[in-house]
């Protein structure tokens, strides 16, 4: 029998949390919710890894592309209006921005060095943003990291276990954090965050 040729529709970008977030106010709310939870979707996420400490050419290419340098010290990130580059390991970074352009093709077109690995993780990661006066207390419930404002500064990032899930936590603003997680754990993370936020009262957006 001859093989049929199927014309498949293009794959639509679908969040792992699509249809799972019920917006509203929940938990122990007195006046204002202590936590605001929302999902960041869709994001373009690209991982860069160099085999050796980055060469000058690589640093220049990144600087020309995003108009800022890659962070070279551990657990930090650099940021512009929309793009954030996070240090995730020795000679390894994540470039994250809201999906407005074909980031992976852009990066690949600029970096010709074959020893640098460029991986598109846009579909592999989910992100939940938490905001509000009690976010640092909420994070303390899930990770053994010092989240005091003097220790965990803005643009500081950590990879750790958050409620036993392997997560990347990034401080965007004084009390605003992004939590990145492997797509398959997104719903578990959301439920854990909601459960932890109940005592402070939370609003899902």
């Amino acid at each position, binding site marked *: 029998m001859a093989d049929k040729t199927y014309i498949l529709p293009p794959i639509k970008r679908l969040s792992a949390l699509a249809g799972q977030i019920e917006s509203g106010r929940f938990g122990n709310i007195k006046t204002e919710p202590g936590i605001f939870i929302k999902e960041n979707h869709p994001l373009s996420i690209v991982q860069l890894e160099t085999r050796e400490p980055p060469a000058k050419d690589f640093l220049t290419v990144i600087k020309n592309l995003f108009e800022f340098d890659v962070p070279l010290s551990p657990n930090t990130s650099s940021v512009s209006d929309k793009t954030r580059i996070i240090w995730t390991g020795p000679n390894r970074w994540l470039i994250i921005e809201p999906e407005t352009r074909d980031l992976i093709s852009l990066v690949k077109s600029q970096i010709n060095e074959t020893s640098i690995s460029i991986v598109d993780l846009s579909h592999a990661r989910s992100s939940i943003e938490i905001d509000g006066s009690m976010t640092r207390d909420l994070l303390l419930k899930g990770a053994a990291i010092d989240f005091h404002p003097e220790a965990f500064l803005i643009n500081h990032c950590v990879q750790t276990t958050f409620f036993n899930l*392997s997560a990347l936590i990034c401080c965007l603003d004084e009390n605003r954090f992004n939590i990145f997680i492997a797509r398959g754990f997104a719903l578990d993370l959301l439920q854990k965050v909601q459960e932890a936020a109940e005592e402070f009262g939370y609003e899902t957006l």
Partner: protein
Amino acid sequence: MIRIKCPYCGLRDHSEFNYIGDATKLRPVNPEVANDDEWFDYIYVRDNPRGVHQEYWQHITGCRSYVKVLRNTVTHEVLKTGLPSDDLLFSYEAEK
């Protein structure tokens, strides 16, 4: 709870790390001419020391780098940590 200082990320819980193995075993210097006994020793034979021991751990849920740890196997005290290339026992003895 054991706390291990990752050379990159700082002090973290040991639950973020995977135990990799004995860091005192060295690959035969000349693999081409090493005999079966040397390979058997390198691959399978491990001591179970009581006291200070050098071992490899990996910061698996963090930066994923390998960490060399000098640990007391009796008290579980982490005496020193460093990069895989560091000789921790030597520097620990020197500092004593």
